[in-house]
């Protein structure tokens, strides 16, 4: 089979995946799976549906350059009948599994900087425990509060993705005292230009403070926090984009672990929901990586931003009980 044929097949497959994804979305939006007569369906329909949904979600997430968790929680929370507690528990396991699978490659290639990750991970993981406890407390008080806060956060993330302009190689003229004390610097080989890029950070203290908020949000809503990690590492602290993206992914494996344990011990991780989600999203991610070089990722990114805006509004609508979006 020629390369052109392979590309055509991949285009067709990605188009099919997208159509399936948005078909599910539209179906869910119009019929809302939530009040479906769950007991009338054979039980295996649910894990199967979840697996297929997460498989497509995995493809779309990779193509759009976002983490699986940030799509999983609002979409599964909005369109499946599960309580938000279980969606957040599964969402964290999904984000954790994805980060753990990606971590080894990033560490071996020295793209994920351990010196940059360790201090921020300590702050973010400790704060994600606080966020998880706060999220569970609010959900016990009234789950609608969590829905509204989640919707607002997702809406904000969509806006951030739309307007954030990351810098490939930020210029850091002088490293600050904390960055120097922690010895946060490094170098990597830019494969495109075959150039060795040296980097260091600045505004380290402010960056560390930002990770308090990131940790709380990640734990509270069960979201992976790559959407927030990358801008802080790249735009604020001045780490190159490649280092920021890789370190962020590695960071999730630590931040999400602490929050996941809180949800796990509380009983929020139901294997019937979590395992098809994890496996579906991981397989989807593998397919997404294969498709990455041949599909118009920018276009998909805009669609995902639109989906996130919609999912955010739907969560707010659900939380406030307005019912405009079904």
């Amino acid at each position, binding site marked *: 089979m020629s390369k052109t044929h392979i590309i055509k097949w991949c285009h067709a497959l990605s188009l099919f995946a997208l159509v399936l994804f948005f078909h599910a979305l539209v179906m869910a939006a119009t019929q809302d799976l939530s009040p479906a007569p769950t007991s009338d369906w054979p039980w295996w329909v649910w894990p199967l549906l979840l697996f297929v949904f997460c498989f497509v979600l995995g493809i779309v997430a990779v193509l759009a350059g976002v983490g699986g968790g940030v799509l999983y929680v609002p979409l599964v929370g909005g369109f499946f009948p599960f309580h938000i507690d279980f969606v957040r528990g599964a969402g964290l396991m999904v984000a954790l599994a994805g980060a753990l699978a990606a971590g080894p490659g990033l560490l071996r290639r020295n793209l994920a900087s351990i010196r940059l990750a360790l201090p921020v991970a300590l702050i973010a993981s400790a704060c994600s425990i606080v966020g998880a406890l706060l999220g569970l407390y609010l959900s016990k008080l009234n*789950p609608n509060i969590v829905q509204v806060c989640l919707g607002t956060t997702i809406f904000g993330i969509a806006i951030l993705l739309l307007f954030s302009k990351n810098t490939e190689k930020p210029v850091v003229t002088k490293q600050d005292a904390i960055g120097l*004390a922690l010895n946060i610097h490094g170098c990597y080989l830019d494969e495109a230009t075959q150039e060795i890029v040296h980097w260091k950070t600045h505004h380290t203290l402010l960056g560390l403070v930002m990770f308090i908020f990131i940790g709380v949000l990640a734990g509270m809503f069960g979201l992976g926090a790559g959407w927030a990690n990358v801008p802080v590492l790249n735009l604020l602290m001045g780490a190159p984009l490649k280092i920021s993206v890789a370190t962020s992914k590695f960071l999730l494996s630590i931040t999400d672990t602490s929050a996941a344990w809180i949800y796990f011990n509380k009983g929020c991780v139901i294997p019937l929901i979590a395992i098809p989600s994890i496996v579906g999203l991981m397989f989807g991610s593998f397919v997404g990586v294969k498709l990455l070089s041949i599909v118009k990722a920018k276009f998909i990114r805009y669609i995902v931003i639109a989906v996130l805006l919609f999912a955010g509004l739907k969560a707010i609508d659900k939380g406030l009980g307005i019912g405009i979006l079904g």
Partner: protein
Amino acid sequence: MDNKQIPEQITYANILFFGAWIGIFIMILTYVVYATGLITPHVDIMLIIQNWDKGVDEYMHITNSPRGWEWLTLLDKSDYLNFVGLVLIALLTIVCYLFLMVGYKKKKDWIYFFICLFEIIVLAFAASGILDAGGH
């Protein structure tokens, strides 16, 4: 500039690699056992489906599900057998940090040694289930 990886970074990567894939393999295997009904679950699947729209406390009460580490006593039930893979991937980071700590101790990089130590304490604290003590 000292940009070299400490050897423990590669050990970290290797543990993550094998641990994550073994965990995912166990998850798939135990889920097949669960889904095929080869071993009886503690909570009937239909009971889960009927109650997964309820908050976690209500769900736990109705399904008589264990909290924290009590699930270890139910490893002969297919639903809790699934927890083995999930717990394995959730424990990996703690194990990896132990190796990193050793590396930083050898290098006498005390700041990062203590960062690793504190991280292990944070993760162990979260994993211990102490924070759920008031949830019964």
